[in-house]
């Protein structure tokens, strides 16, 4: 009896000690975590306005904030807050001054002279001059940087020379009519040459630029805190605020991957602006008061299905035409996207001045589809799937779950059902990104939907020139339709070399689009969706007409929460 009570006392003491040890760190962590959310009234003197904005992005968190490394859209989204470009684009697609005040191209297109704006400094004090341009071009072309998008855009740049302190001469290995468009992309932004000399780890954590904001801190999987650049002097030509720093003093750039949570946070006021708004959220927002929409389709190509014309069955034009006529895209887009987006019949995004709508080339006509397949020798089997020479009409369709939103995946399923009526057996496989790229690299696809964001119609060259069939060192290639047409190649090459006549260039791209439509190798769906939702109190937000990233320079003070 005595023993057991001694043991039980000791046991009880031990248990309490363990319990205390478990709870103590919790109490401490909750206490310290309590001070986290205090940016609500940062900097505002009056009681009823605030100058800290919370932005929620649904895109993946970048692995490196320097858009020179790799080069994807999430990097462009946040990078365009603290980095700027030599030139920008206005909403009519015209190139306008930004860090560069003027430019000229040589008659043979082999060199450009770019004059920089006076007195611009990076936030670390380094001056913006010709050497900065040279350092950035070299950084992008350096294999150690590992650039993908920016490097590709600068593929034809040979070297950068000094003309004077503020004038750089860019020498080309071949004329490139898309050079200025390339210089307007966030993946080709201008960073401080002093900062570029740091280790890649340091530059990835906080790149230094000339933008209206700068990186203060980055808590992984949580947020990046951006603070105002007090010495900001380099607004693009189409900004409202042409001088002075932004009104906002801080932006909390939060990573909220789940779309329902993101929208709930917007409704509750935790968040002021969000991106990647899904169709159901946009619909709900249009009914709700207090939330507005900013629809800013991405430039470059439209979202389209590409038919692999490099192998059977789509190497037969009749079969391609039949597939396109067998699916009712209009109905699918309207129902699945709930009227939040328009059908596109162009290879190019609707924000590109050179885009051409070609509704006649992409009609819905099931009867015609069946007739074409009969003519092409495909006979309907007992299960409704057509056969020819013992092979079934199988269409492999790898879909990347990282790139296709749920509404789009449902759209593909609807198209699959529609195509079945004509006798196509469309096999959709949902894959993660690396597996998807692998399937494409191995040519194991008949259909694919691969978005491509680029400034300007030069994207047609990347996607439809026959040189695009040749794989990059990683195995990736861009011409998924595998179209190989000498007339098309000639038009695209000519357009690329037409550096001094914008009208002629546009005309050439329009002719190129005619050929692409005739060949029936793509089925345009809609623009690359890019919807922002914002609380009504946010005034002055606009999407930069370069790659449709948000610009907070003109945003006024926000109402208090």
């Amino acid at each position: 009896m005595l023993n057991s009570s001694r043991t039980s006392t000791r046991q009880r003491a031990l248990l309490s000690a363990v319990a205390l040890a478990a709870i103590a760190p919790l109490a401490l962590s909750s206490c310290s975590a309590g001070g986290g959310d205090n940016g609500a009234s940062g900097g505002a003197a009056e009681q009823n306005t605030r100058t800290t904005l919370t932005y929620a992005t649904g895109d993946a968190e970048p692995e490196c904030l320097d858009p020179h490394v790799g080069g994807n859209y999430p990097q462009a989204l946040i990078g365009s807050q603290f980095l700027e470009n030599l030139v920008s684009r206005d909403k009519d697609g015209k190139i306008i001054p930004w860090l560069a005040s003027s430019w000229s191209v040589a008659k043979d297109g082999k060199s450009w002279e770019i004059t920089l704006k006076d007195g611009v400094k990076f936030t670390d004090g380094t001056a913006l001059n010709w050497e900065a341009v040279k350092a950035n071009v070299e950084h992008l072309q350096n294999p150690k940087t590992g650039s993908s998008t920016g490097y590709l855009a600068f593929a034809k740049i040979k070297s950068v020379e000094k003309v004077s302190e503020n004038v750089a001469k860019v020498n080309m290995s071949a004329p490139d009519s898309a050079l200025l468009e390339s210089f307007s992309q966030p993946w080709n932004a201008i960073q401080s040459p002093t900062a570029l000399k740091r280790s890649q780890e340091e530059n990835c954590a906080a790149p230094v630029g000339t933008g209206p904001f700068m990186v203060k801190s980055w808590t992984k999987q949580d947020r990046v805190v951006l603070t105002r650049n007090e010495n900001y002097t380099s607004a693009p030509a189409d900004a409202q605020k042409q001088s002075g720093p932004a009104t906002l003093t801080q932006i909390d750039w939060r990573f909220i991957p789940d779309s329902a949570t993101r929208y709930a946070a917007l409704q509750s006021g935790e968040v002021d602006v969000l991106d990647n708004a899904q169709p159901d959220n946009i619909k709900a927002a249009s009914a709700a008061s207090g939330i507005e929409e900013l629809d800013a389709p991405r430039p470059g190509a439209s979202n389209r299905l590409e038919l692999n014309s490099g192998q059977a069955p789509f190497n037969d034009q009749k079969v391609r035409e039949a597939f396109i006529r067998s699916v009712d895209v209009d109905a699918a887009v309207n129902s699945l996207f709930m009227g939040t987006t328009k059908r596109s019949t162009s290879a190019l995004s609707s924000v590109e001045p050179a885009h051409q709508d070609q509704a006649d080339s992409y009609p819905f006509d099931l009867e015609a589809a069946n007739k074409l397949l009969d003519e092409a020798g495909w006979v309907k089997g007992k299960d409704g799937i057509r056969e020819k020479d013992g092979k079934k009409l199988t269409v492999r369709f790898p879909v990347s779950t990282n790139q296709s939103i749920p509404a789009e995946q449902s759209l593909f399923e609807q198209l699959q059902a529609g195509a079945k009526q004509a006798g196509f057996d469309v096999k959709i496989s949902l894959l993660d990104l690396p597996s998807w790229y692998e399937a494409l690299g191995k040519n194991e696809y008949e259909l694919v939907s691969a978005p491509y964001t680029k400034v300007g119609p030069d994207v047609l060259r990347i996607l439809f020139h026959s040189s695009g069939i040749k794989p990059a060192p990683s195995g990736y290639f861009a011409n998924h339709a595998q179209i190989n047409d000498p007339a098309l190649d000639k038009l695209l090459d000519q357009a690329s070399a037409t550096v001094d006549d914008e009208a002629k260039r546009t005309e050439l791209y329009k002719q190129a689009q005619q050929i692409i439509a005739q060949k029936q190798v793509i089925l345009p769906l809609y623009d690359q969706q890019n919807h922002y939702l914002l609380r009504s109190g946010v005034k002055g937000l606009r999407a930069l007409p370069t790659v449709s990233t948000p610009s907070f320079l003109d945003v006024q003070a926000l109402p208090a929460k």
Partner: protein
Amino acid sequence: MSTGHGANAVMTKPGSGRAATHRKSWWVAVAVRLMGAVIALWLVATLAFVVLQALPGGPAEAALGGPGSQASAEALQAAREQYGLDRPVLVQYGHFLGQLMQGDLGTSYSQKKPVADVMGPLLAPTLTLAVWALLAAWVLALMTAMVATGSSRVAARLASALELVASVLPGFWLAAVLIIVFATQLGWFPPVSTGTARGLVLPVLALAIPLAGYLSQTMREGMLNALASPYALAARTRGESPWGLRVRHALRHGLVPGINLSGWAFGYLISGAVVIETVFARPGLGRALLTAVTGRDVPLVLGVTLASALGYVLVTIAADALVRLVDRRAA
């Protein structure tokens, strides 16, 4: 007459009495335990390494902005050389093990930082969520188990049904419902993690409720078994109240399986709370693991997997020790 070497004297070497044997066997037990842990960790590391090799898509692209990178051939070659990806697989494995034994988890391909630096800041939020979820689950489970073993048959039936339903609720659905009800409609809590205590409530509940369902079921089993035993009847005849009977006698029998289950649950929560972390936008090792697998960032995947395995091992040891405290029969 005799010097102690008689027939009645027991030959004893110093340090070989019953107490000494007990101490020696305790050390042996500890050593065996440690060996087991090391072997388990090695197996996990090897398995993860093998699986990653079998996945399609090359890890070199992870260092160049992700899959589908259009980086130059030189950049690709530079990345391959930097991370030793051009060497044979066995050599890579040997190098990886060698690094590991020196305590070096390698460098993340995609984030270009040491894996330890990537995982470090994620440990505190992950553990905070896990510990609070476990505590909340215990509170809920104890309450439900007490009712489920109580005298009111209707309440007991209801409690049992509640346990079952709770344990099968999908985490994603539960999280969405909690957000809609408590964040959007009632506005009591924020829909995303805010770094404050209020922002912790919904994610903790979303994890705790299904766990409480499991815990409660196991505890109820143990308690009901105890309540049906002869000594319980004996205690009742001594005048013990039903409540006291459950708390002072039966509860211990429910605690033991509960503690073992908690050990497993805590280990799981280290890298398994990825759905809740994603929905509530909380930093966590689960999310890091998912991103790393999608991007084929081999060192980071291995790092998180090993951390998770280590967590399981440590927590199992702790759970065992706790069980010995609670259950005197096991001591």
